[in-house]
């Protein structure tokens, strides 16, 4: 069951990622909106180590305004970026 809903604003958590992660540095602490609910799947932090029966979580595609991602974004104010996170990487929007 997905914790976050379509259209919900979420902030990317800056969890420690000592080894493998797919959560990009440039998204940490950034806030966007959930635009797609993706199937539950084994998280990359487990799968990368061959733990195919590891922790499974719902995934989400989150859309960010580029001007919220980059402090000096010089493109159009309407420009966006979408990328995908497993549930542990998200929390309800702080802003």
């Amino acid at each position, binding site marked *: 069951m997905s914790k976050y809903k379509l259209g919900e604003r979420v902030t990317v958590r800056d969890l420690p990622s000592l080894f493998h992660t797919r959560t990009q540095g440039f998204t940490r602490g950034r806030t966007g909106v959930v635009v797609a609910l993706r199937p539950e799947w084994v998280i990359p932090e487990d799968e990368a180590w061959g733990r195919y029966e590891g922790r499974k979580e719902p995934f989400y595609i989150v859309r960010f305004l580029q001007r919220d991602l980059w402090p000096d974004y010089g493109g159009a104010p309407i420009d966006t970026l*979408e990328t995908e996170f497993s549930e542990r990487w998200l929390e309800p929007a702080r802003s």
Partner: protein
Amino acid sequence: MSETHTHDHPHHHEPIEEKQEALEFTILETAIRELSIEKKLFSAEDHRRFMEWYDDIGPTKGARLVARAWVDSDFKRRLLADGVEACKELGIDWMRPTGFGTPSDYTFFIVCENTPKLHNVIVCTLCSCYPRPVLGTSPAWYERPNYRRRVVRWPRQVLAEFGTIIPPDVEIRVHDSNQKTRYMVLPMRPEGTEGWTEERLASIVTRDTMIGVALPSVDWTTTSSPAEGKN
């Protein structure tokens, strides 16, 4: 070499040498491949056939998907709703892309539709994930940090370097394929293509238009050389 060999051009008969040290991964691949062949896991010919197929895939399947979506709005709807299922209609199976039964790492395929107000572009900042079953092998520039680092941050500048200028009232949406989903852009059908056959439409849907760094043009295909130019 005999007395018939003449030197009317300056060159030296240097021995042909490998100038670069082999990368660790090159050595590893060679070792594993040779051991596999020795242990009869597959044959040298199996491997050669795979590489020949792999190097040859190209973007034709993607172009056919786009052309079909342009002429058939019901197909387009199905393609946008479930990319993997719609691909099967054109004989593309994301679960068995190689036909050799190897498991597929990517299991979701999302097609991003361009509109007059939205332009999509694809990247993988983490490595170089690419929708290979429909576009084939990724271009070298797509795999380099120069593209991957910059297109997420300066998309308009990077697209301009490809000769593609998107007006500021059109949203550029960058898709960073960091998980199991693979993406492809469905470009807008250009003006002046009314009545074209699906095959002719597919010929103007080039690789770069499905990555999102270019827009299709009625007078450009990759079937004629740039010198010959136009369609």
